[in-house]
């Protein structure tokens, strides 16, 4: 186990180094000069040069990589070029909102999608199964930004039942939750459909496994067989998908945060890209990458908990 964690830790460092390198290269590859983009068309060459050197753009990319690593070792993400404030202040003020959005969406997907799949698998070819198939397949095909726009139009614009923009009044939890409802549903819809299909398929498969036949021959009740013995097996592939899923939800959150003007990592990175604020983009993407790796790691740990056959420390057996 410990060996596995150490291995994963090294892998994480390696991936993050690659991300930093790629992001630093990006500045040199993408056309257009960030300094003139920030300063606008009327900036003097001298001023542009000053900003360029403040952003380390006049130095080779490996200098930027080294600088960023050094900063990280000091627990800092660097300083924002526009406001002169530490970048971490921006990042950590919006990060919780994105996390809450992603986790709420994921929970919705799990709480709605999995029961849908279980019901379909235990009632195969019934009319409800067919209905669920239609619902879940159409859900899978709706991109989150389309769902977001429709929800916004229906519930905020037409019905006025839920707020459209922002986070709600500061310190008001109820209001915060009201503002969370539409974005999280929009983000969850694809995953509800996807999970329902996935769970249906894998549970149906498991119900045909020889060990389920064994359970039946032992006279166990159908409920115990389905919800205890079969479901735990069927959830294993689902967990693997969810690990990657949380990462892709963060990506999806960018659109949702733009549509609902909701402060978060997505909006932060989006705004930074628009003004070519590369240090900010770099830090934002780095944090998202790190979270992605972290969720995958957690998924792997849950995996071993569900399936005892998977040994994390293979070499030590």
């Amino acid at each position: 186990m410990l060996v596995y964690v150490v291995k994963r830790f090294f892998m994480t460092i390696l991936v993050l180094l690659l991300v930093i390198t790629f992001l630093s290269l990006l500045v040199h590859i993408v056309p257009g000069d960030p300094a003139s983009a920030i300063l606008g068309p009327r900036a003097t060459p001298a001023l542009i040069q000053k900003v360029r050197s403040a952003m380390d753009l006049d130095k080779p990319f490996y200098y930027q990589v080294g600088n960023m690593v050094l900063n990280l070792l000091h627990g800092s993400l660097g300083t924002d070029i526009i406001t002169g404030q530490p970048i971490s202040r921006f990042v950590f003020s919006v990060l919780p909102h994105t996390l809450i959005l992603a986790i709420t969406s994921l929970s919705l997907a799990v709480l709605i999608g999995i029961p849908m799949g279980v019901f379909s698998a235990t009632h195969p070819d019934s009319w409800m199964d067919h209905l669920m198939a239609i619902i879940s397949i159409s859900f899978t095909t709706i991109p989150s930004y389309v769902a977001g726009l429709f929800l916004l139009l229906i519930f905020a614009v037409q019905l006025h039942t839920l707020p459209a923009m922002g986070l709600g009044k500061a310190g008001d939890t109820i209001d915060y939750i009201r503002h969370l409802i539409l974005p999280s549903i929009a983000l969850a819809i694809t995953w509800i459909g996807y999970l329902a299909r996935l769970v249906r398929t894998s549970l149906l498969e498991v119900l045909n496994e020889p060990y389920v036949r064994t359970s039946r021959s032992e006279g166990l009740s159908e409920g115990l067989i389905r919800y205890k013995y079969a479901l735990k097996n069927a959830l294993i592939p689902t967990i693997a998908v969810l690990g990657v899923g949380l990462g892709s939800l963060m990506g999806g959150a960018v659109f949702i945060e733009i549509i609902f003007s909701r402060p978060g990592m997505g909006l932060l990175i989006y705004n930074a890209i628009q003004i070519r604020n590369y240090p900010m983009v770099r830090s934002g993407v780095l944090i998202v990458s790190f979270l992605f790796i972290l969720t995958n790691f957690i998924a792997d740990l849950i995996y071993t908990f569900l399936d005892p056959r998977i040994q994390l420390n293979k070499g030590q057996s």
Partner: protein
Amino acid sequence: MESILKVENLEIKYHTRQATLSAVHKANFEIIKGQIVGLVGESGCGKSTIASAIMRLLPPNGEITQGKLLFKGTDLLGLSEDEMRHRRGQDISMIFQDPMTSLNPVFNIEEQMVDAILAHRSRNQSKSRSEAREQAISMLNRVGIPDAASHIRNFPHQFSGGMRQRIMIATALQTNPSLLIADEPTSALDVTLEAQITDLIRKLRDDLQTSILYITHDLGIVAELCDQVVVFYAGNVVENGEIHQVFNSPLHPYTRALLLSHPSNKNKTVRLTTIKGRVPSLKDLPVGCKFAPRCDLAESICFEQEPVQTNVNSHFVLCHAYAQNWQGKAAETYLNSSNNYQPTKEKTPQRLLVSESEQTVQTKDLKVHFKDSIGFLGKLIGEKQGLVRAVDGVDVEVFHGESLALVGESGSGKTTLGRTILRLEKPTSGDVLINGQEITHTSQKDIRHLRVGMQMIFQDPISSLSPRKTVSQLLLEPFKIHKIRVDSDKKVDELLEMVGLSSEQADKYPHQLSGGQARRVGIARALALKPSLMIADEPTAGLDVSVAAGILNLMKDLQDEFGLTYILITHNLNIINFIADRVAVMYLGKLVEIGETETLFSHPRHPYTEALMSAVAIPDPSLRDKRKRIMLEGEIPSPRNPPSGCPFHPRCRYKEELCTRVPPKLESFQNSTQWAACHFQDQIGRESELLNH
């Protein structure tokens, strides 16, 4: 004599989109308390359907349309689903074929066993989980799980195959049911484990007086274990009687043929009996007697009327030949007069004494080790890299025109050795010589030319043929690979004829072939380039007895015709007796004994050979009590971590202190052609000498 289960006129149908198929037709048989009833027949005969029907666990499209299942007088078919559920596992238990997949992989043994007990809580009230756990542990101890109390929390994958089957048996019997249905419980296991499990089943029957319905296709096991035999063919009980009666004087032509097609040392020099045609599919069952199209005795009545069950000395048979108005040949003459008994050409004994120049294959201190892949990071942080010694120093010679069988339990390294001889696996050290030419370091390009002369018949007949190619494309592929021009149509016909297939098969795809046909195509493909050496990996695995008999006959004929050299990799010791000239026994990557087949069977010098040979189930119930069987304890250790000294010492009954330290060398016994690697081979030799005289 208390009747436990009485199956009366049972009729089972499967509803498919196209038609309603009759899977079981008018089945009648009875199981008495404490009896083991063998249900035998080839695959597709409806054996497992009967088992599912008794449990009332038929698939949704299966229906019991008629008949009764009287369990201690109560008709199971009249019970509600909930009442039936309480019979399952409580009164009637079942064990299945594959212990690897029949236990739930994500729950520990305790959870599964305790739930199986508590599922019937309403009957044995006030049973707590810890009481149930005690009950489970005592049953596990009883089936031979060492230190069950501390292992019960383990998961299925932490047990070996044999242990898992023991756990299955413990789970099935912990509630002390009156009837146990065993559906091919040993066909996925090695012969030594098979002997252990059948022995265990018999002991438990003696102790608990459980009645057992034992479903199998292996006549050897039936002869070892059963009191009564029910022979099944195409959904019909064709014969039903006491074990000795059925084996000594089989009545039904099918039973006669089945018994004669079983390879054993009795029919060493004769051809095995094959049954023409194949088991009919449920979609087009013949009218009248279901066996008529394959029966040589069949008269016109057999094709028109269904036979009725006839009683001959309380031994039931379903055949027109026993009716009073039968005009044809007597059933007893079936196969006795037919030309199936042709002896093959007498083998010249010189073949075994050929000079060194005629070696086709020779290996010198051959080693094949596999390393675990631990990756770059693993190395960086100093993980230990495991080493599997699949083949660990083997010297073997195969002479021109002989058949050498490589035997041993799974994990003994026999398949790796076979693959390495063909250079499909690269040896770690040592040499392989083919016709005197060293091929260990030959370049890939030169190996290609050599491979024309050496071919392999792969284990899984269907999956080793590309599903996207027709039979004729498959047969011509070897010529394409080696860029040899041939007259395609003629060649395909020629090859198909050689393996006994009609030219109609040429345009079929592999999935349209039966197991036996696919195996024949595999053989034809290997034969295409006229090799001199053939390596056959489990050539009869997964085939029914009568089909396997056809394959074995074919292999023998081909050898006589083309002077092929065979290396047979198998764990089926019955076929060795029939086809192999010499046997090489492997254990944990090492050769432990090699010698002529008959000598090895009658006078084994190595304790492992001795145990292997005695574990073979022989289809003769009269030998059951006469033969003293040597039970091997435990299972083959992991080749990652082989025992010190003699690798066999932990399971050996002759073990002494010397064996734990010094690995024995392969030595010839009194300068004969028999070599064994055992410190006490002289002593074992003398003992078996005494036993045999």
